[in-house]
């Protein structure tokens, strides 16, 4: 009980301190662009009503989900193929390095040309940015499958789909998850950016809209919502990771002990 309380304290101490600092630093502010935190917080419930959550937050989240999921599927599938065959890797590597170096926001206007300005465009932008860390990490993870494990699998006739499912992907899963984690933050950024140009709803759109109409406290609440959303998604991600990679954390802990 005492340990739990202590842990809770560690978790909330710094956020509370920062919020307090913000609160007091901005308390007497008369700057229009830098409203007191009190004002921002009182504006919050007025702005983020159920209707707004449904009309702006939900579409954003659905696009993020669609873009992220397709990036995960494509990234893991392609990464597995590229990681498994040396020849394929030799052919693909230079192209991958080039594509990875292109900053995804640059693709927004390009993708707009092909995919229009609808949801497809936004999903494509999110997916095209998220796919790289997933793909590259999967390649590395698949390449690094231990030779003894690989031979063990072969000698017991574990080949083809069973090998992929039980050995290769499981062995690469810590790396794949590292990629997924990076992709998640990229996805949130791209979700916002894709909605800032040519959009009629969504979180990014709403924030830009507030800024353009000089609803500055409202704009700040939007930024808070984004922060909270990012935090929430990372908590969900951690829960999933802890479940899937439980063995990995246990293995690491046990090899540290010995």
């Amino acid at each position, binding site marked *: 009980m005492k340990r739990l309380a202590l842990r809770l304290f560690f978790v909330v101490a710094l956020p509370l301190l920062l919020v307090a600092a913000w609160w007091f630093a901005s308390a007497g502010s008369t700057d229009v662009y830098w409203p007191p935190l009190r004002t921002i917080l009182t504006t919050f419930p007025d702005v983020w009503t159920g209707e707004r959550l449904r009309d702006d937050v939900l579409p954003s989240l659905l696009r993020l989900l669609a873009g992220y999921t397709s990036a995960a599927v494509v990234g893991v599938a392609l990464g597995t193929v590229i990681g498994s065959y040396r020849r394929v890797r030799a052919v693909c590597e230079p192209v991958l390095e080039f594509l990875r170096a292109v900053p995804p926001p640059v693709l927004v206007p390009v993708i707009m040309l092909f995919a229009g300005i609808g949801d497809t465009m936004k999903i494509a932008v999110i997916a095209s940015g998220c796919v790289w860390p997933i793909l590259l990490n999967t390649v590395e993870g698949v390449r690094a499958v231990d030779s*003894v494990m690989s031979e*063990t699998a072969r*000698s*017991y006739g574990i080949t083809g789909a*069973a090998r992929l499912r*039980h050995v290769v992907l499981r062995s690469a899963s810590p790396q794949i998850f590292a990629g997924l984690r990076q992709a998640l933050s990229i996805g949130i950024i791209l979700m916002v950016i894709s909605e800032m140009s040519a959009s009629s709803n969504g979180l990014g759109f709403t924030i830009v809209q507030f800024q353009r109409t000089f609803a500055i406290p409202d704009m700040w609440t939007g930024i808070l919502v984004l922060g909270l959303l990012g935090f929430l998604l990372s908590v969900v991600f951690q829960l999933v990771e802890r479940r899937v990679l439980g*063995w*990995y954390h246990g293995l690491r802990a*046990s090899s540290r002990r010995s």
Partner: protein
Amino acid sequence: MHGLLSVSGLKKVYEGSGRRVEAVRDLTFTVDAGELVCLVGPSGCGKTTLLKCMAGLLTPTSGEVLLEGRPVSGPPPGMAVVFQEYGRSLFPWMRVGENVELPLKQKQLSRQRRRALVADALESVGLGDAAGAYPWQLSGGMQQRVAIARALAYEPDVLLMDEPFAAVDAQTRADLEDLVRGLWRDRGITILFVTHDIDEAVYLGERVLILSASPTVVQEQLKVDLPSERDQLHTRVDPRFAELRTRVYEQIQAAKRGVVPGA
């Protein structure tokens, strides 16, 4: 006459980056059904290469390996391998029971049969209650027991063991040696046991094959005429044990001296 496992004229040459390494030159021997044969040789003599060729994990440069008269061209279903590196051979994302069961799923055995085999194999290595643990929660010796259980459950005709106890401490090692002797006696399986430890080879084997230094040939075959009931306490002080041990040791020394540098 062909034994259960026969190796004839086996040769393996590694070629790569301008270097040509002849790991195994010309190996011929047979293992009969129900035998426990130990392969012993100086370190670096190509024991692992030989074992991988027998297991169908490596293709020999020439010569062939026959299992029940059929040439081995890939990992044969009638063979199970226990590797030295238990930590890298068990899958850390699976529990002990799942590790033992996975190969059986590939054999498409029924769920009921799989369960029975897994429980029996774990029981016979003394880990009947560890099915739910992860391998990394167990000690090194226990992990190697799991690997042995996995091999047993697979019901192979031949069990190949590649220096399986080289990485465990001496006491655990003695226990595991007795476990292998016991399993061999109780189950009548055929075991080919590769080791660099002379005492271990004599203690375990019914027959010891002494390999030369690389490029490897069979230096000598030795029948171990110790009683089949062996135990760590008495067998190891048996005068006959000492004689055999000395004999193997001499042969290995001779094998080392026989190396022609740069050949």
